[in-house]
């Protein structure tokens, strides 16, 4: 089946999915921290919109709450915090030179295909859109991990971590119209605490190695140099 047979809600969901995936790709290739954070905020925004849309179309009140939570956490609080860090460390000028960027992008694309491939066997059981949404969610998760693997800045790691959360959220919202309320709240709480802890850690890391480059943190190894 193809797009014009779907109702407006489905179409929007699909385009949202496309946009979310696109933002992940942007982040993956992004060398400048501030832009990275900005794109991350955009992704959060998209997520909020999706949630709101789902809440509206399924008139499911508790999704509104999670939409608001997402907005507060992922669009406002975390980006702001990260931005502050970057400015404090005066890292907003330097660009992280990613080694073989093209390879990373290619592998990201192949990851997307891969996630479709592994979710394929489920298709016959349920409608395609949900599967696509799940696939997008999964690929966002994987792309987030790839982001963490490819970037060296602790801040980039945080962004990657959070974008993994986004991917999960997206999948949860679209595929299963959100988790039960208690779980939503719990997850949101965890994310909040995590964000605060990240803030604390930046402080500690700076004080210990006065840089946020994670490659410098390799005291605890067992390889004989």
């Amino acid at each position, binding site marked *: 089946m193809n797009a014009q047979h779907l109702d407006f809600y489905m179409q929007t969901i699909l385009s949202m999915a496309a946009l979310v995936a696109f933002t992940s790709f942007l982040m993956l290739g992004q060398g400048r921290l501030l832009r990275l954070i900005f794109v991350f905020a955009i992704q959060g925004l998209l997520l909020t919109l999706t949630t709101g849309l789902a809440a509206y179309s399924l008139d499911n009140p508790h999704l509104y709450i999670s939409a608001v939570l997402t907005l507060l956490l992922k669009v406002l609080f975390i980006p702001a915090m990260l931005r502050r860090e970057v400015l404090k460390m005066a890292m907003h000028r330097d660009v992280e030179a990613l080694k073989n960027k093209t390879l990373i992008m290619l592998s990201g694309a192949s990851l997307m295909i891969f996630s479709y491939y592994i979710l394929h066997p489920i298709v016959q059981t349920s409608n395609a859109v949900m599967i696509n949404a799940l696939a997008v969610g999964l690929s966002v998760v994987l792309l987030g991990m790839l982001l963490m693997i490819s970037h060296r800045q602790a801040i980039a790691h945080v962004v990657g971590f959070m974008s993994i959360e986004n991917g999960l959220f997206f999948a*949860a919202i679209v*595929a299963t119209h959100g*988790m039960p309320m208690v779980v939503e709240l719990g997850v949101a709480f965890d994310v909040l605490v*995590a964000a605060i*802890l990240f803030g604390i850690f930046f402080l500690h890391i700076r004080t210990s190695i006065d840089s946020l480059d994670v490659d410098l943190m390799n005291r605890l190894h067992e390889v004989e140099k």
Partner: protein
Amino acid sequence: MIAVYFILFLALLGIVYFALIGHRTDVGKINTALNGISFLATVWLAVTVLKHGTLLSENKAFLIDSFNVYLIVLTAFVGMTTSIFSAPYMAHENAIGRLNDQRLRLYYSMYQGFMLAMYLVLTTNNMGVMWVAMEGATLATVLLVSLYRTPEAIEAAWKYFILCGVGIAQALFGTVLLYYAAVQINGIDNALLWTVLYEHADKLNPHILELAFVFLLIGYGTKMGLVPLHNWLPDAHSEGPTPMSAVLSGLLLNDALYAVVRNKMLVDGATHAPTASYLMMGFGMLTFLTAALLLHRQKDIKRLFSYSSIEHMGMMTFAFGIGGSLATFAGLLHMTVHSLTKSAIFVTVGHASQLAGTQKMEQIRGLIKTQPVIGWGLLIGTVAIAGFPPFGVFTSEFLVLMATMHSYPWLTLPLLLGIGVAFAGLFRHIQPIVYGNKPEGQEPIKANLWPVLIHLALVLWLGLAIPSFLADWFSQATLLISGEKLL
């Protein structure tokens, strides 16, 4: 059921209380008291479960069955004994100025936070909430790992945080998938409750469940320290304060395993294929062998024993992977004895490193001649963990071997090899530590060895004879997990 609320509330109270006045001198005693009370409560809970069987709270939020009840008791017990140990330990750390009052506050309050998370993981009926609590446990402990604020500690904490965070996120994805599979079945509401899921297990879509299990295994496996997801574990164990290492090894790993096994039960119910079993066996064996080899390369005493924890988790995973009543029974028993023994060992290790003023093994020498209690405690504990009878670890390992011999005879060879290698790895390091003459300027310290004594005595008892009520729990749990009756 009130007991559950009581315990949770008590822990919550502990968090707040210690956060406010956690730096007093008597705080250690209060901590012990709190844990002691909750331990008694859990015993009461256990007795009720023993009487009336499985308990389900009215709002279906909490589920106490024979599988998790003894884990709850174990958790409370280890929590209590460790708090007994941590009182003088932390006082000493404070005295020598490694910790200031504020961090002491943080420590005690987070200790309670960790206990809360553990209780929640075990008691909840909602696998989403379980996930939340598991993440909560990470968040609670991550600051304790970096408590000493040394570069190593911060590095370890960061790795712990990131790796476990990412891992646990995958677990959440698995949960979402499960939920998705559940909501496919029409006419089913609040589909994240274990009870509901178990009812409809056979209707769930096997494909989705297999995928979900992969995510869950990797997610919770990261917390369990399955190779190759284990890398954070030795760092976190070796850099944090020793009581933390004790509870991490003794409790957190168990609870992660608990989560995996619960999910395995579900998946086995849905897909009647051995995929899950094979995955767990593969992971278990890999973990077991790798950790056994890595034991030989250690220089830091706490790192050494954290690797031995990894090794034992590998063995348990393998046992549960084999499935079948005997192996499952062995797995349950091993969970118990391992957490008892390992926490006891960490207690002695903590004292030993305080005694020598370092965790570097080549600088700790002649413990027996310096302070016999600690030396013998460490030695006997190591003998127990290395799987020598009449200690309980031997019993479970023996049963695992027998079960393996029955189902997959050729797998016994790597298993035995691993046991031998692991034993050598442990003793080549421990022997010079405990034996030999006392080095200059190494003086006895004030130590509280009762926890060690109690734990080892319990392990010994379990090795000689398994009390009937415990045997009943185990056999019911075995029935629950493997679907076969043992006794």
